[in-house]
């Protein structure tokens, strides 16, 4: 069958099982868009900014586990997508980005809307391609999907010049094994590795599992749970690991790290064995690496060999697919007890910040609304069953603390890159992936305004998402750092915001404002009752801090836990070079 390159793009996407693509047209991708007329079975979502397209594809991928697809034009279209690719790269999201490029004859001539896109995106993609011959197009797209979804997933960019889209060739979708001699996936773990790990597991008296995004991505949720139940090992979650282990389980410790509960961080610091499952010892998780969990042996299972021994030196490093390796370990595990250890953790948990804070806030007589209450009430009124998508900042950490999740792929957030503006577009993508889920996009007033143009996309697609803006008229997290580490010099953090309700209404989206706790329940129910997008602005107090906090670069056990302590912080933790 003779097809143009433009048609081949869509044919390949269909062969890869793609149902929806997020994109924005432009000169160099026009042949592809013209050919799209012939493929009504592919739903194209017209975004308002290419960054939104990548975040939507990202949200789609995180919510479904399938490859998300974003399409854009050359030059500015492609450069706008870099943030989205970097976000996906840091959080290992499978994504294929297709960009138009100026014709091959014009490449290198600084033609109109020309950018060296493969050069620009080299560090923020798992791999990228510039296709110069239409004959290579199908095989390239097939490879792109293969690379994006296998191993440690990531974004793959395919840059297609306009003349390649217009050229014609015989199309067939190859089905031979993919020929990538330099692309290696791990096999099963060697028995010596399994034995070494088992020895440490069975010797441990104070073990803690550190469950990361890899648990969710590898589909190892069930295996992890079995592991925990056999060995009675408490589980700490990374931010992206949320959902990988049910947080209502008695052995769940919640989120670890900078804004983790003290009990969880204490457990990590006091452990004699850390089992790192699909996580990468990020600086937000470890604090000061020199004092991190000093008494523990460490087992690290990861799909990416370059993560093993990168930040933390480990005793047993296993390069492998987590599900496979856990399946190898499970039949050989001996039943564990660790009653003393768990009792110790329970004791630490008695001194819980989250519970105290909610209690204190509820007891305040002024009736003011606090961000933590918004999240806690959202949890209550959605019965903890919503698929939440957060932006980046204080509300994100509060979501992680006050909205426990029990199912995988129900909490999407930009963890590694911390991309403000990620939330609302990726909630749109997530809803496309999981139309039966109740999707809540939770953003701060700062991050929301970075990609708010996608309200128009939500309207045009009539996508049924609930948008919550936690508005404190400040860049709250930056303000928190200024409060702690810059002696309250609040430079460039107060925001003069638009009227978010009117703004939403201008986009044709019904909206409400909530200023007191009493209104939350009704507003949430109102939002749920609306078919299509709806928005609630929660006006919360400015003077708010996410507790506890491990200052960047401080020891993990050295947390700022209470307001009275915060006054002394700027002297204690003055580490201007910490990330």
């Amino acid at each position, binding site marked *: 069958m003779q097809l143009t390159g433009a048609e081949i793009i869509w044919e390949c996407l269909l062969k890869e099982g793609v149902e929806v693509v997020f994109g924005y047209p432009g000169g160099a991708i026009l042949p592809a868009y013209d050919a799209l007329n012939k493929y009504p079975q592919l739903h194209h979502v017209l975004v308002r900014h290419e960054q939104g397209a990548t975040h939507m594809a990202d949200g789609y991928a995180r919510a479904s586990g399938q490859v998300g697809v974003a399409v854009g034009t050359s030059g500015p279209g492609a450069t706008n997508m870099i943030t989205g690719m970097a976000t996906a790269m840091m959080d290992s999201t499978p994504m294929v980005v297709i960009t138009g490029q100026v014709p091959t004859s014009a490449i290198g001539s600084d033609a109109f809307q020309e950018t060296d896109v493969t050069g620009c995106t080299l560090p923020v993609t798992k791999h990228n391609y*510039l296709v110069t011959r239409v004959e290579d197009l199908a095989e390239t797209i097939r490879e792109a999907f293969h690379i994006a979804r296998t191993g440690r997933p990531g974004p793959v960019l395919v840059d297609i010049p306009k003349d390649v889209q217009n050229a014609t060739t015989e199309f067939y979708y190859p089905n031979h094994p993919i020929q990538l001699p330099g*692309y290696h996936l791990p096999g099963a773990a060697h028995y010596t590795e399994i034995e070494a790990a088992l020895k440490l597991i069975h010797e441990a008296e104070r073990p803690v599992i550190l469950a990361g995004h890899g648990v969710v991505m590898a589909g190892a949720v069930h295996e992890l749970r079995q592991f925990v139940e056999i060995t009675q090992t408490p589980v700490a979650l990374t931010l992206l690991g949320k959902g990988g282990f049910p947080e209502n389980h008695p052995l769940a410790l919640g989120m670890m790290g900078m804004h983790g509960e003290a009990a969880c961080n204490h457990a990590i610091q006091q452990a004699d064995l850390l089992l790192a499952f699909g996580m990468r010892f990020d600086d937000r998780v470890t604090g000061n690496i020199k004092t991190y969990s000093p008494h523990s042996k460490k087992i690290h299972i990861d799909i990416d060999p370059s993560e093993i021994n990168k930040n933390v030196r480990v005793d047993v490093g296993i390069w492998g697919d987590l599900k496979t390796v856990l399946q190898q370990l499970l039949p050989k595990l001996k039943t564990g007890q660790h009653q003393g250890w768990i009792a110790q953790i329970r004791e630490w948990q008695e001194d819980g910040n989250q519970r105290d804070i909610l209690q204190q806030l509820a007891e305040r007589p002024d009736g003011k609304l606090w961000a933590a209450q918004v999240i806690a009430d959202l949890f209550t009124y959605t019965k903890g069953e919503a698929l939440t998508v957060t932006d980046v900042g204080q509300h994100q950490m509060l979501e992680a603390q006050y909205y426990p999740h029990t199912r995988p792929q129900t909490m999407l957030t930009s963890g590694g890159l911390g991309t403000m503006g990620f939330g609302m577009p990726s909630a749109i993508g997530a809803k496309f992936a999981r139309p039966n889920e109740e999707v809540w996009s939770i953003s701060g007033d700062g991050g929301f305004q970075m990609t708010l143009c996608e309200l128009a996309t939500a309207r045009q697609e009539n996508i049924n998402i609930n948008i919550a803006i936690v508005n404190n008229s400040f860049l709250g997290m930056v303000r928190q750092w200024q409060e702690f580490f810059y002696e309250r010099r609040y430079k460039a953090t107060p925001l003069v915001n638009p009227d978010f309700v009117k703004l939403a209404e201008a986009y044709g989206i019904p909206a409400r404002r909530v200023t007191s706790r009493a209104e939350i329940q009704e507003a949430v129910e109102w939002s749920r009752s609306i078919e299509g997008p709806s928005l609630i602005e929660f006006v919360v107090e400015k003077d708010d801090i996410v507790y506890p906090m491990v200052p960047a670069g401080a020891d993990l056990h050295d947390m700022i836990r209470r307001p009275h302590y915060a006054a002394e912080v700027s002297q204690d933790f003055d580490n201007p070079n910490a990330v």
Partner: protein
Amino acid sequence: MKNTLICLVENKPGVLNRVVSLFRRRNYNMDSLTVGRTHNPDISRITIVMEGEPFQAKLLAVNLYKLVDVIEVQDVTDIPTVDRDLVLAKIRTTDAYARNNLTDLCYEMGARIVDIGPEVTIVEFTGTEENVEAFINALRPLDIVELVRSGLVSMGRGVRNMQGSDYKSKRFVTAPRNGSSN
């Protein structure tokens, strides 16, 4: 310390860029990098000398390995190898005295004169990095007009070769294992 890594890469546009970019991105210190085709036209071979601790060299190796176009990586720092660096030096030889000096030196050190002009002479020397350093030091009293080094190339001794080596099995893990491809 200096670590030597050998990579076999697919002979595709942009591969060298990916390799070099990795050094900048991950903040590695590159001492030298030599690249050229092999007997297989689809495969190029890169020899990298990097300054750092052995564990950093290991991390560099796995990061190189993650590049899709990199087929094989071998850390040859601690295995027996033949190492060669090549230097070309252009020396001002306007008078017979200088020319004789250079001829003697080349004879003593096993260098070759590869071009003689009315004003300058080009000499070539091949050897290990240390030998090349010594040769360059010996040239210093003369009038060096121009000098270029190829950078180190390295090859493991014995029957082991890069393809089909058991390198993959030892790279990442504490014990041997079979990695499967695709």
